[in-house]
């Protein structure tokens, strides 16, 4: 655990395992199939589906005021973890416990109805992001102003650039504090200036209340925004500690060997 002041626990994850059975489409030659059939005839005939163990026995908790950066190479289970926390999956009682409300966004270039204008899409997005907020009209107006999209707000969302779409979504998602905010690689489309602006807004929101899980491939950005870092590797939590130690460790990850660390042991930063 990091050294920040620990108060109310907002998220508690206990023994979280996530297993999928992916569909595979191999272009095996007859020769390959013959070899596999002769090596293990029973397995070949029964064709047991391949199992993908995405998250392995994860255990951690997040408390109020923590800005947790989630680092890891592609395909290590970062998004699956965030989805499990956001409630997309139902892992069973007491495996993922959230005290309060979660707001999550996984794609900032997504319009619910791209044919509709940015303003109309913002109204729809707000319906989904803030189902219980009473002053939604005020919230939308404030978020639209923050997005600085001006006259483009009344043009179809489908005509927006990725950056403009990201501005709209990020302005909305960060309009009100929440207990737990999950941002999964959401700054990728936004321009540098807006990244800084939105970072300040997210930081302000976190200071007001709650915690954040911030997924990024940019360790420098994580170091700047977060006060705690988790690193996932091949579905396992291999680091939980300070941003600077996490930053150094992540830089040493070797993508060529599926995220093996070079000379560092598991949980070295905890």
């Amino acid at each position, binding site marked *: 655990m990091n050294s920040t002041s620990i108060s109310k626990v907002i998220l508690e994850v206990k023994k979280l395992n996530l*297993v999928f059975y992916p569909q595979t489409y191999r272009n095996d030659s007859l020769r390959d199939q013959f070899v596999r059939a002769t090596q293990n005839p029973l397995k070949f005939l029964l064709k047991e589906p391949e199992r993908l163990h995405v998250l*392995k026995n994860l255990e951690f908790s997040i408390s109020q005021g923590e800005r947790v950066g989630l680092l890891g190479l592609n395909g290590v289970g970062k998004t699956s973890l965030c989805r499990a926390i956001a409630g*997309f999956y139902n892992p069973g009682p007491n495996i993922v416990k959230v005290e309060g409300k979660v707001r999550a966004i*996984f794609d900032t270039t*997504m319009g619910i*109805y791209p044919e509709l204008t940015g303003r109309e899409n913002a109204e729809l997005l707000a319906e989904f992001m803030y189902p*219980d907020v009473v002053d939604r009209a005020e919230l939308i107006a404030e978020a639209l102003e923050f997005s600085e999209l001006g006259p483009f707000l009344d043009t179809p969302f489908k005509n927006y650039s990725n950056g403009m779409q990201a501005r709209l979504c990020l302005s909305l998602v960060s309009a009100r504090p929440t207990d737990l905010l999950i941002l999964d690689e959401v700054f990728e489309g936004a321009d540098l200036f807006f990244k800084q602006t939105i970072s300040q807004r997210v930081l302000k929101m976190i200071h007001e209340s709650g915690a954040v899980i911030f997924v990024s491939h940019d360790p420098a950005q994580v170091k700047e925004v977060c006060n705690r870092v988790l690193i996932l590797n091949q579905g396992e939590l291999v680091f939980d500690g300070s941003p600077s130690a996490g930053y150094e460790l992540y830089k040493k990850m070797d993508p060529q060997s599926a995220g093996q660390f070079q000379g560092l042991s598991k949980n070295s930063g905890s």
Partner: protein
Amino acid sequence: MPRLYFASIKGGKATMSLLHLSQRSFVSQAWALTLASLKTRYRNTVSGFLWVLLSPLLQYGAQAYAFYFILKLPVDNYPVFLLLGLIPWIFIISSLEMSTGSFTNQGRLLKSFPIHPWVPLMAQIADNLINFAVVFLVLMIPVIILTSFQAISLLVLPLALLPIFVGTFSLSLLLSTLNVFFRDTRFIVSFSTSILFFLTPVFYPESIIPEDFRWVPAVNPVYYLIRPFRELETAFEGSQFWIHLGEAYLVALGLMIWAIWYWGRKKNELYFNI
């Protein structure tokens, strides 16, 4: 060996607890999407809402011409008979065809925000239901003026709308979930509906079906949902309307239980397969 996630949720709850959405928010979100869907569909069209009327009107006209004027089916007041069967049929079939690919087509949306997957599906059916109700009422105007149809019968229309809505939504949920895992579903639905049209007493009365084949409409859930509309005309005259209405509710309930059971079994695998 760690406890496996899917082992722990086998037979998981089939409720709206996914994504922690209250029922009030569910209705509010589905309604917002329905309005947006209506707005989107006709924004760039020249005739806008006229298209909603035009398509069933042309189908109705063509079938009335073929079965009433050419084949001369022995049914009293055939134009009204056809209208009361065809319009609900169009609602059910168009909803099934449009919604079977709902989860797969909207995969990116469902993965981007915590949106309950039922919300876009519900909005799709509600959108069709509004179109259906408008078409039905508009086409009933000449029927009331030109025929002996009693307008007071329309008072029981909402009672017939509820089972058709619930039944259609349940079938759509079943098929759209199935389509996530078996992509053939979309194609099967597409050609099955044209076959089902001839097997369902929509343009012909059940009474002309030979005794040996009476089981065909008896095992057809779609027919049970349509039948109360067929008898709207005699709703207040001690006909079988109320019995058929009760059967429609039972069929809708059965379909709902089946769809929710299947959804409960598959919902955790949904996001990985869309």
